[in-house]
């Protein structure tokens, strides 16, 4: 079972699904063992703006602009209790339908009076080693010039309790 479930979505995994999955899924054995694979992730973060407007669209409080996780691309906050936010952020970005499903209602609940949230998903693509080689003999500060920033998602969401 542990051999098959290491690649559970394969034909063998699907074939033995009815035998193995009840046990394997319950004890945490049906897991893909992939660390930094198939390819290591690039730097990612969520930028959000929270708006506070009344029923007539009048802003009654200054918007809040922030990042999730708060440390964003300036360097991960790797402390054990802070690190979990980075894992949650990846969970949200991998399937962006999770942002309105989980992130927005949660953020609205944490900010009483919030009416709308504008969310951007940002990816800082790390240059390839070959690209890095081309600037390495100049100045390592040139690194920032070859990091490309891409917006891979951008949406505005109403807070569930606002309407």
């Amino acid at each position, binding site marked *: 079972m542990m051999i098959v479930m*290491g690649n559970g979505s394969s034909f063998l995994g699907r074939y033995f699904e009815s035998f193995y999955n009840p046990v394997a*899924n*319950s*004890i*945490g054995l049906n897991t893909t063992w992939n660390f930094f694979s198939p390819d290591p992730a690039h730097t990612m973060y969520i930028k959000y703006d929270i708006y506070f407007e009344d029923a007539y669209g009048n802003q009654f409080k200054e918007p809040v602009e922030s990042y999730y996780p708060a440390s964003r691309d300036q360097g991960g906050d790797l402390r054990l209790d802070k690190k979990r936010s980075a*894992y949650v952020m990846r969970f949200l970005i991998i399937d962006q339908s999770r942002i309105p499903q*989980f992130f927005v209602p949660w953020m609205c609940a944490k900010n009483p009076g919030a009416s709308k949230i504008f969310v951007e998903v940002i990816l800082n693509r790390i240059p390839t*080693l070959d690209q890095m080689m081309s600037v*390495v003999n100049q100045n390592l500060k040139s690194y920032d010039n070859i990091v490309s920033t891409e917006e891979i998602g951008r949406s505005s969401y109403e807070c569930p309790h606002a309407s």
Partner: protein
Amino acid sequence: MQARIKKNVGDVRSALDQFLFEKSAQEQLGVYRFILCATLFYIACFRQMNIDFLGVESMIPRDAALNIFPDFYRPYIQWFFWPDAWVAYVHLLLITLLGLAALGLTSRPLMLLTWIIHQGVLNRNYSMLFGADTIGGLFLFYLSFTNCTSYFSLKNVLFKKNKNDCSSKSDVNHNISISSVFFRLMQIQLCIIYMYTGFEKLKGTTWWDGTALWTVFANPQFSQFDLKFLSRVPVFFAVGTFLSILFEVYFPVMMINKNYRKYWLIAGVMFHLGIGILLDLMTFSVVMTSTYILFLQADTVSSTVNYLVGRFKIAKI
């Protein structure tokens, strides 16, 4: 001819029986229990600071906790049996149980309860899991079926028992057999984890290309230090990338081969030490390397423990 085949089948069967059911490994299991449970205890102490991820205010509502798993991976049992409002207390209980287990003040039923709460916590919010949570949980499950408190345990000091009157000989043999099977399962599990981790990397273009380590070390969300200066020595990343894959893919083969085993384990310690320091994944590294104890000889483990804590005579615990 028939007799020869019968003999060979008998030999294989007895070798298999011996391999699966007769390995006592109390020393290895005792030390492994201490390190694994102490590491999970440490992680859980930090997780107590993130308790809002697991309670009423969690981003993942309770009724969605299992639904966020892809269908194929969804647990069949909802292990988080407690109401969300109680999570802080249940988690404190988990910390206590892990602490007691590290000291050896536990039993098989208590270890299983520890694992159930641990698994419940993991299932409650799957989005925030570390690799160390998942792998540690799986090994905690296996460990709860072993005789892991027979050695290096405070229980032996506090509740000195007469080995002759505790249970019948058949019960003892039965216990050893179950413990032996789960000991072997842990060894096999570790090999499989490494093997698949290596295979998964081979699917990635950057691992195949030899530049994956660069992407990891240049990412400030992974790397603890600014290692971009190492791009002046690009071969470091290429060699490191290929060595990582070689180490992982060939781990099971090298564990079977007794001659190469120790070299591969030393390489593994170096590999995980590097990951632990450079990527600040020390808890993951300890969870992984602690399982190497299961591949060591009992006398090696005993003599190392004796050496480390000799003058306090803790090895006799």
